[in-house]
């Protein structure tokens, strides 16, 4: 199982429920290293986007307030089985990750 983003997307009664788990340390920048006492630099997802068939359905602006390995779940009305979902994030360091999945 690859790290990064895990996603489940299912349609029921015309509404798609998309659940995802993203691997990310989500450091606030306020913690200190236990051994050295040095502050651990902030490293968190700033923007998360979801697209269905190329069209944006969700944009989230996150901060250090979101915990490590964030879980994101949302519903989209009108999505159908077979639609292509793309979930992506960009963090404050400019790193990014994304996953594509077919809604079942």
């Amino acid at each position: 199982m690859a790290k990064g983003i895990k996603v489940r997307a299912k349609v029921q009664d015309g509404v798609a429920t998309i659940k995802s788990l993203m691997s990310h340390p989500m450091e606030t920048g306020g913690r200190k290293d236990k051994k050295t006492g040095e502050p651990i630099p902030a490293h968190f997802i700033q923007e998360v986007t979801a697209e269905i068939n190329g069209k944006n359905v969700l944009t989230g602006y996150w901060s250090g307030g979101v915990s490590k390995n964030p879980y994101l779940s949302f519903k989209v009305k009108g999505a159908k089985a077979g639609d292509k979902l793309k979930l992506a994030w960009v963090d404050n360091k400019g790193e990014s990750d994304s996953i594509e999945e077919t809604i079942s």
Partner: protein
Amino acid sequence: MRKSLMIALSLLAAGAAPMAAQASPESDLKQFQEYFMKRFPGVSLAEFGNGVYAIDKASREQWKAIEEFPPYETAIDEGDSLFHKPFANGKSYSDCFPNAEKGIRQNYPYFDTKTGQVKTLEGEINECRVKNGEEPLKWEKGKIASISAYLAYKSRGKKLNVKIPNDPRAMAAYERGKHHFYAKRGQLNLSCANCHQDSSGMHIRADILSPALGHPSHFPVYRSKWGDMGTLHRRYVGCNKQVRAKPFKPQSDEYKALEYFETYMSNGIPVNGPGARK
């Protein structure tokens, strides 16, 4: 004076220990399981392996949601790699656990009549390492939890089958574990039974007390509180600390005896480890 004192003591002992009198592990088991089946009607024996999630609807829904992305998955993968990586001397865990892929978790702990010791799964993992010239792993978390998770995963569905041979040393270990379970300890003066038997299903602040029936089936466990995997003995240490008792060492004789007793009491429940718990 001594004679009347002896008579008084023996009467007191006979009256005060109905369980210990002529009880056998088999009758203890029957009584133990019947107690919980009666306390939680409608819960099957196998379901008790899911602890609180077998007895509380709201908790179960949250647990099901977490199981969509099981937090112990990385541990299973890590355990798989570690298990199959050869030692420096060329041998591997497969040499010590030839039936690992078929499922072995359900047979632990067992009483080794040769050494007179209770053998736990984690104990044998480290024995395998030391036998092959490797450093033993720490008992509570990390690599040992991952290897144990892999072995538990391979054993899913197999019913727990702990045996107590007709050997006074095995009986002594069983009785020691049983005593630990029922004895009060710590500043809070609580026994395992006070919470996990007498008050099982009730709330303790924001948590619900799990029934002791089914306790060991899902270990090692990913605990949200730890944000990490942990072995059964890691939990025992925590439990003792929670009642403000000085904990025993993981894989000490005391905890091995407790694991022996607890797992025997859960005989018949299928292995469902590694598990995810709050």
